[in-house]
C-alpha cells in the first residue's frame, strides 16, 4: 500500500508528451534553420513561421509541461486540476503546426491555428490562475508567475488578432503590434517565468542559501514596468516610450544576471556537471544577447537584431530549458518508477539516470554550433551560419535521444501509480 499524497508531482504520462513533442520540435526547428536565408529580415514570414515553430512547439511546449510539475513546487500547493494538461498539448501541437503552415504556405489557415493555440493557452492560464489562487505564501516567484501569465493573456489576444489580420483581412496594423506581441511573449512571459522559477530552481540544485534577493526583486519590478510601458507606448504610438521601455528591460535583465551571479557565488554544490555547464552557456548567451540588444538601441542593423535574437532564443532560452530537462525528466521518471521501491530495494540516484555520453556530445556540438552560427549571423556570413547550424542539428539529435533515454529509464519495472493505490 502506497498511500502518500502526490499533490506536488503529477503522473509522468501527463507530462511525457510535452517533453517528447517539445524535443522533436527543437530538433526539427534547428534542422529548418539550414533552409533559412540569414539575410532575410526578422519580419519575413518565413522567419516568423520558424519563430512560431520554435517558440510555440519547443519553448512553450516544454515550459507548459515543466509547469505541470513546477507550479505546485514553487507555490507549495497542489494543482487546481492537472488533468486539464491533457487538453493543452494536443491543442498546442495542432495549432502550432497549422500556424506554421499558414505562415509558410497558406495564410488563410493562420486564424484556425491561432484559435487552437488560443485554446491551449487559455486552458493553461485558467488552470494556472486557479492554482495560484490557492497559494498561501505570496512569494516573489508567485508574483512573477502571476504577471507572466497576465502578459501571456494579452500576448495571445494580440497574436490572435494579428493572425486574423494576416489570414482573414481584419484591419490591424500588424507591423505596429508585432513588437508589442514579441515583448509580451519574450520579456513578459518567458523571461519573467524564467526569473521566477530560477529563484527557486538554481538555489535548490546548487544548495545556495542566505543570499541577497534585492537584485531579482528589482529585475522583476523593472521587467513588469518595461512590458507595461512598451504596450502603452504601442497603444498611444509613442516610439520614445517604447525605446525607454526597452532600456528598462535591459536594465532588468542586468539585475537578473547580477542575481544569478550572487546565487552561484553562494552555492554549496560546486559540481560542474552537465546541468551546471549548460546553465553557464545559457547565462553567457544572455549576456551576449544583452550587449547586442543594447547595440540595437543605437544602431539600426538587421544582422545585430538577428544575432541578438539568436543568442537569446537558441542560447539563453534553449539552454535553460534543455539544462533543466536533465534535472526534471530524471526526477519525474524516478518519482514514478522508483519512489515506491524506496526502503524495499536499491534505487538509483538521479544522476545515474543521465545518459552521460549523449549529454556530453549534445553539449559540445550545440555549444560550438551556437557560437559559430551566432558569429555567422552577426557578420552576415551564410557559410558560417549554416556551418554552425549543422553542428547544432547534430547536437539536437543527441538532445532528443537523451530525452528519450531518460524517459525510458527503468520502464521495464512497469510500476504505475494505479498499481500502488495512489
Amino acid at each position, binding site marked *: 500500500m502506497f498511500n*502518500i499524497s502526490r499533490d*506536488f508531482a503529477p503522473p509522468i504520462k501527463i507530462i511525457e508528451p510535452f517533453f517528447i513533442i517539445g524535443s522533436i520540435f527543437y530538433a526539427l526547428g534547428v534542422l529548418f534553420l539550414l533552409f533559412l536565408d540569414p539575410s532575410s529580415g526578422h519580419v519575413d514570414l518565413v522567419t516568423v513561421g520558424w519563430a512560431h515553430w520554435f517558440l510555440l512547439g519547443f519553448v512553450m511546449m516544454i515550459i507548459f509541461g515543466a509547469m505541470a510539475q513546477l507550479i505546485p513546487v514553487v507555490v507549495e500547493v497542489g494543482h487546481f486540476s492537472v488533468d486539464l494538461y491533457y487538453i493543452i498539448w494536443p491543442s498546442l501541437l495542432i495549432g502550432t503546426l497549422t500556424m506554421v503552415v499558414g505562415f509558410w504556405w497558406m495564410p488563410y489557415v493562420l486564424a484556425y491555428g491561432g484559435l487552437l493555440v488560443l485554446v491551449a493557452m487559455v486552458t493553461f492560464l485558467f488552470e494556472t490562475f486557479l492554482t495560484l489562487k490557492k497559494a498561501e505564501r505570496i512569494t516573489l516567484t508567485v508574483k512573477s508567475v502571476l504577471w507572466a501569465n497576465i502578459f501571456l493573456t494579452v500576448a495571445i489576444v494580440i497574436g490572435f488578432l494579428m493572425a486574423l489580420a494576416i489570414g482573414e483581412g481584419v484591419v490591424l496594423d500588424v507591423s505596429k503590434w508585432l513588437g508589442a506581441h514579441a515583448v509580451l511573449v519574450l520579456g513578459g512571459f518567458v523571461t519573467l517565468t524564467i526569473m521566477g522559477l530560477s529563484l527557486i530552481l538554481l538555489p*535548490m540544485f546548487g544548495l545556495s542559501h*542566505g543570499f541577497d534577493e534585492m537584485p531579482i526583486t528589482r529585475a522583476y519590478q523593472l521587467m513588469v514596468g518595461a512590458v507595461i510601458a512598451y504596450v502603452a507606448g504601442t497603444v498611444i504610438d509613442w516610439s520614445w516610450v517604447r525605446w525607454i521601455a526597452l532600456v528598462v528591460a535591459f536594465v532588468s535583465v542586468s539585475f537578473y544576471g547580477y542575481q544569478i551571479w550572487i546565487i552561484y557565488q553562494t552555492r554549496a*554544490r560546486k559540481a560542474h556537471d552537465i546541468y551546471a555547464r549548460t546553465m553557464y552557456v545559457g547565462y553567457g548567451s544572455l549576456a551576449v544577447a544583452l550587449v547586442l540588444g543594447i547595440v540595437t538601441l543605437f544602431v539600426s542593423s538587421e544582422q545585430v537584431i538577428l544575432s541578438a535574437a539568436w543568442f537569446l532564443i537558441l542560447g539563453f532560452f534553449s539552454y535553460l530549458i534543455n539544462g533543466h530537462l536533465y534535472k526534471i525528466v530524471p526526477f519525474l521518471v524516478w518519482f514514478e518508477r522508483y*519512489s515506491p521501491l524506496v*526502503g524495499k530495494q536499491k534505487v538509483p*540516484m*538521479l544522476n545515474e539516470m543521465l545518459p552521460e555520453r549523449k549529454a556530453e556530445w549534445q553539449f559540445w556540438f550545440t555549444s560550438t554550433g551556437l557560437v559559430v552560427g551566432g558569429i555567422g549571423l552577426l557578420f552576415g556570413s551564410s557559410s558560417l551560419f549554416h556551418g554552425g547550424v549543422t553542428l547544432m542539428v547534430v547536437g539536437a539529435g543527441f538532445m532528443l535521444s537523451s530525452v528519450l533515454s531518460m524517459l525510458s529509464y527503468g520502464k521495464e519495472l512497469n510500476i504505475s501509480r494505479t498499481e500502488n493505490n495512489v
Partner: protein
Amino acid sequence: MCNITKEQVLDSISTVIDPEVGFNMVELGLIYGVEIDDDCNAKVTMTLSTRACPLHQMLEQWVREAAERTEGINTATIEIVWEPAWNVTMAADNVKQALGAM
C-alpha cells in the same frame, strides 16, 4: 521507561537518502532532533534543504517509516520546521567535502 536511544533512531533514519544529492538525511544535517517518550514513541524534528522540495511529502513519510523500523519504537511523528533554515554548514564534513563546500 523506554530504553531506546536517540542514536538508534538516527541510525534507522540514516537509511533515507535524498536521491538528488545522494546523501542520507542525517549526514545532510536535516534531522534537527529526536525525542523518545516513556512509551517508546518517537518525535522527529526535521527540515528540508528548500521549502519547494518536490519530495517534501515523500521524505516526511520515509523518515517516519524509517524511525518506526527502529526495534522497539511504537510510533513516530514528524514535525517539519523551517527555523533555523538549513544551510550546508549543518551537514557532516564528508558531505561538505563531496559537494566542494570545504
